[in-house]
């Protein structure tokens, strides 16, 4: 599916890499890339893939706004904002492996997953949206969201278009819920609004009830995927938010209502003309809620 953009993707990643890496590191990578390109069994990939940090270091990239836009043009949703030099090198090697035979290709990549350490897992999961034959890695990525390693989880769930394009609804819902559960911001989940569904809304509402019963709060971001699925049950949650002392909860409730076609939700929004106005003028949106949630 993506093989037609592979050469330009590799060129783009190399351009980022060469800017940050030493000439020795660039030379090492080029040599290994050439070996991997002509690899028949995938074996030539194993050593350099794990050895990458030894030769190219682990420094974090600093991308310009223009480069981030370029990345997104190359592959919608691709956001290498926090990538490191070893991660870039590893991704370039993965993309250089011959991929004409989907089974052989995925077998080699899945073998890397099966023996990976933490840094390797981060590189592998974050590279998923760029790899050929993405359908071959759905089970692996679904398994990946069960990890207890925070940075590995983030590599799959955040700033990565792969889950929204490939996950089943059940896996997707688990991922959204776990993101909230582990205290991470929903803002960075790619495709959050497009893939929301009534079952997810029900799960999130249940989760909020559980927290409230224990005398705890929930992040106001939680109501973002809920909004389009407000029904006669969920509307009671929205009313509760409007009745709270917390201004951000009022804003989240108003935003959720604005996403809903449920008549009672529209009526509730009309009772808060100032918030409604702010939403229609673009002054109030979910990014604003996310910012507040992060700093809270």
């Amino acid at each position, binding site marked *: 599916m993506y093989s037609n953009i592979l050469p330009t993707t590799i060129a783009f990643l190399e351009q980022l890499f060469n800017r940050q890496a030493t000439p020795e590191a660039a030379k090492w990578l080029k040599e290994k890339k050439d070996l991997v390109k002509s690899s028949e069994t995938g074996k030539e990939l194993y*050593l350099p893939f794990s*050895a990458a940090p*030894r030769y190219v270091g682990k420094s974090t990239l600093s991308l310009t706004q223009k480069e981030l836009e370029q990345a997104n043009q190359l592959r919608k949703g691709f956001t290498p904002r926090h990538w490191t030099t070893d991660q870039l090198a590893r991704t370039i090697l993965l993309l250089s492996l011959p991929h004409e035979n989907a089974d052989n290709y995925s077998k080699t990549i899945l073998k890397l997953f099966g023996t990976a350490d933490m840094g390797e897992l981060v590189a592998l999961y974050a590279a998923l949206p760029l790899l050929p034959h993405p359908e071959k890695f759905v089970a692996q990525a679904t398994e990946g969201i069960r990890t207890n390693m925070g940075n590995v989880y983030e590599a799959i769930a955040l700033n990565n278009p792969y889950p929204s394009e490939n996950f089943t609804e059940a896996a997707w819902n688990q991922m959204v819920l776990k993101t909230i559960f582990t205290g991470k911001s929903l803002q960075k989940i790619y495709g959050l609004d497009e893939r929301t569904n009534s079952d997810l809304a029900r799960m999130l509402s249940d989760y909020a009830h559980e927290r409230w019963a224990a005398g705890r709060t929930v992040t106001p971001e939680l109501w973002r995927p809920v909004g389009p699925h407000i029904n006669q049950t969920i509307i009671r949650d929205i009313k509760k938010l409007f009745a709270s002392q917390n201004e951000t909860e009022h804003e989240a409730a108003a935003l959720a209502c604005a996403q809903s076609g449920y008549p009672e939700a529209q009526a509730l929004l009309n009772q808060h003309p100032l918030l409604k106005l702010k939403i229609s003028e673009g002054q109030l949106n979910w990014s604003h809620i996310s910012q507040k949630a992060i700093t809270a």
Partner: protein
Amino acid sequence: MRFIDPHIHMTSRTTDDYAAMQKAGIVAIIEPAFWLGQPRTELGSFKDYYSSLIGWERFRASQFGIKHYCTIGLNSKEANNEALAEEVMELLPLFICKEGVVGVGEIGYDDQTAAEDKYYRLQLDLAKEANLPVQIHTPHRDKKAGTIRSMEVALEHKLNPHMVIVDHNNEETVRDVLERGFWAAFTIYPNTKMGNERMVEIVKQYGSERIIVNSAADWGISDPLAVPKTASLMLEQGISIDDIHKVCYQNALDSFGQSGQMKESDWMDNTSIDQSQKLFNNSILRGGQLPTIGEIRTNPIFDSNIIR
């Protein structure tokens, strides 16, 4: 005084051992991949064992303020199961260059069979390709000949002796090893390999150049404090602090440090621990235990520092 134990099998040891090692001044350890007391029958057992050396065990050590490194290899005993050995050889390139892997080891001869020889040689080539130090296990039986053979084969495969640590030496093998330019490691293991009184005599005779002390503590009756106890005995017996520092710390760092994966700053820059951390949703703490968080201190007191 700080110590490194460059050969210890912590997957077989308890948290009490970690706590005692830290108190005794051990700051870093190297865990060579070895056999587990009974042979493995499946490739997956090797894979999960290697993964535990770079994963859970490293984390467990960190919870006691000890920096954990490992060497990865196919041990000589299990090289004799050729069908399995063949599969393990395909697995090794996936592991030997991972972060914190400081060498290929422990490899070498046990019965000195043809299969052992084959996989020893293949792993020497692999180490050379990856530019990694090699940790050699020398045989218990026919030791002297086996030790010399290990070195001759390493030289035949064009390894630099400075990249090879020959382990489990004794009075009979040390001269050959040092004369050929290899590192000579000694395992202080109760009643079998070396006692630490004998070790003191070896340092008196051969000095501290390229000599390394370790415990090889494992699932057998062994002593994870062998290195600090030997240091303590050396001090009593008049060996200089400088020499003790070399054989119980610096030489291990200089030899395995050639991997580029082990630096003094790894344990000097950060001396605080946090036992409330978790890995794989698991913790070393069990119900109701309080985590130790903060600066760690050493307090070297031993019941006895003689290991016979």
